[in-house]
């Protein structure tokens, strides 16, 4: 296991290097640079432009800059933003990343769960118009033009029904006297939710060891207890109102992303389930006189989960990229919005930094996919 992890780590470092090289030179090959843009002010003399270019290191040859960049990268320095000079890129990422992660992890978890459950039910009851309409609806959601879909959600839920705020991630009025900043709350929220999830997960795992007749109760308890704990924790916390403020802003973007991502999971699950249902062991399970639900959930869905799991993990970084759209539509100041703004003004260090982060997240999620796969599929063991 350790040897495997070591090898994988080395592989990841090499891949990351290649990825950085590819993106760096791809971007470097493009005409124009920030200095032209920044100095588009008649009050700034032309020698200032040259000076700025030198200050930002743009006058060096690309290869030299690249290796300097890589060197700095491994020292934890991603350079400074051109646009927000001299703010370090790493600071920008640090500020933005929690917000994006909260949004996307929750949306992906929810959509994964809902998509998986509905996909397996659809596959179980296949045939007829329900299957066709739901497939077409699923595909339409899957290929929907996301900006439009986001606007429709805003229009329906924020404007017409006025249930949720239309954008932003907090209402300033609630934060005037707040002694802490939003990221502090974000991180606390993430950690507390993570702990609650972990407890629920462990509880579920433990409940599997119980006698079957106690299982359902144990599972319910293992979900309700952490949830109640979470609510109690924030209820009594002095920051409860702030956390609620953020949560209320989270709902709409999460709903949008969930619906969007859900269709993908649903479709994969359905296909995977249909394949699994043809397997002989499903027939065996039925012949054993197991209830349909057990056959579906324990035998079919559990095995069908494998490709879905891979699909989920691989879609995470893509979702991070797709977040650019959602974040723009919902004024959500995360990585995606920062990326779009940086790209438009050619703030190359920020663009590179965020691409690198996406690359790292991709690699990590591939690793998690592999490890998770090993847990899910006993046929695979890493030595």
């Amino acid at each position, binding site marked *: 296991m350790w040897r495997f992890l070591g090898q994988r780590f080395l592989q990841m470092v090499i*891949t990351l290097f290649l990825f950085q090289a590819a993106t760096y030179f*791809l971007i470097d090959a493009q005409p124009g640079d920030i200095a032209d843009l920044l100095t588009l002010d008649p009050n700034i003399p032309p020698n200032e432009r040259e000076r700025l270019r030198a200050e930002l290191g743009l006058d060096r040859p690309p290869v030299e800059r690249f290796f300097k960049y890589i060197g700095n990268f491994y020292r934890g320095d991603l350079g400074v933003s051109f646009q927000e000079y001299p703010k370090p890129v790493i600071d920008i990422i640090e500020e933005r990343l929690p917000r994006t992660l909260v949004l996307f992890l929750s949306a992906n978890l929810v959509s994964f769960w809902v998509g998986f459950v509905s996909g397996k039910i659809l596959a179980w009851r296949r045939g007829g118009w329900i299957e066709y309409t739901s497939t*077409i609806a699923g595909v339409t959601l899957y290929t929907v033009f996301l*900006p439009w879909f986001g606007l429709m959600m805003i229009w329906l839920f924020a404007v017409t029904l006025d249930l949720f705020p239309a954008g932003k991630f907090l209402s300033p009025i609630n934060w005037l006297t707040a002694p802490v900043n939003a990221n502090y709350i974000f991180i606390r929220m993430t950690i507390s939710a993570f702990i609650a999830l972990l407890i629920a997960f462990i509880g579920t795992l433990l409940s599997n060891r119980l006698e079957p007749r106690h299982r359902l109760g144990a599972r319910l308890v293992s979900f309700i207890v952490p949830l109640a704990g979470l609510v109690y924790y924030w209820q009594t916390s002095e920051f409860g109102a702030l956390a609620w403020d953020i949560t209320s802003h989270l709902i709409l973007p999460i709903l949008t992303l969930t619906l969007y991502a859900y269709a993908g999971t649903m479709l994969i699950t359905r296909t995977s389930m249909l394949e699994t249902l043809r397997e002989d062991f499903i027939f065996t399970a039925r012949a054993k006189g197991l209830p349909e639900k057990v056959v579906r959930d324990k035998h079919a869905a559990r095995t069908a989960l494998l490709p879905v799991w891979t699909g989920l993990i691989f879609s995470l970084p*893509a979702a991070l990229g797709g977040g650019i759209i959602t974040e723009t539509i919902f004024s959500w100041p995360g990585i995606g919005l920062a*990326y779009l703004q940086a790209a438009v003004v050619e703030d190359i260090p920020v663009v590179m930094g965020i691409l690198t982060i996406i690359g790292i997240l991709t690699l990590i999620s591939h690793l998690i996919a592999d490890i998770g796969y090993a847990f899910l599929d006993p046929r695979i063991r890493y030595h």
Partner: protein
Amino acid sequence: MTATTTPDATISIPEVPLWRARLLMALSSLRSSWAMFAENPIGLIGLGVIVFYGLFAAAHPILMNTVWDPVVYDPVNGFDIEIAFHPSAPSMRHPLGTDVLGRDVLSQLMFSTRYEFALGMLAALATSIVATTIGAISAYYGGVIDLLLMRLADLVYMMPLLPILIVLGALMDIGMIELAIVLGLLFGFGGTAIVVKSQALSVKVKPFIEAARIAGGSDFHIIFKHMVPNLLPISLLYMMFTVNTAIAYEAILSFFGLTTIEMSWGLMINVTQVFGYLLRFDTWWLLFPASIAITTLCAAFYLVGRALDEVVNPRLRRR
């Protein structure tokens, strides 16, 4: 019978030329594939939608040359001077209304359709060519070439597509051709190449490849004459998925104002946004037709792709 007539005799046997035999075979396999495809109503719905958009696109030049006055209905430069205020709501004169700059929305929608098709097809073609070549070469040679190409494919597969396109769009002029090529390369080198290669591996061990090799066929000959044709079905399947992704990405890039395409569905929405009509649902004809067109056409290609998947991929075939 003299020796000179012998070759004539062999030739005079009425034999079907090779290309015709191939064509016939292709047709018959097409027919059976079609039968299989037609079993699936989902695929047929998708195909129906695509055909509808095809007719929609084809109708534009006809309308422009017959019913529509080009001055009023030109999708890019048209302007309807008769109407006092633009955007105007749908009417008999403009079935989908006019946009902020006084241009007919229906005309723009129809005009753009052909570009969406062209873009999708071009990107798909590029993907297909790249992926098939890479997959075939990688599978055929194996070893270091395979290793290098597949590592490269992994790397490209890892590239976050939308962010890369956004930064390219911001830094350089991205028109339709550039977009198609970029997408084609990224898809072709990435995921599709990996899939095609695994298919190519199973083709490689087929006896006719060995036969061709023993017969002394060059590598080039074997790859392009024997392997590639057998990879076309799977390639075709992934072309469908490329088409819908290409259209979706074009729309998103245009929506952000990062392309230089003169008229497209995404751009229609972009203009709506630039003029501040995005969140105005009273002028729905500025937002809905283009959005729905993008969504439905993408969905249609995806549906066809899925249906084809069932034809090409025997595991999914119904019993």
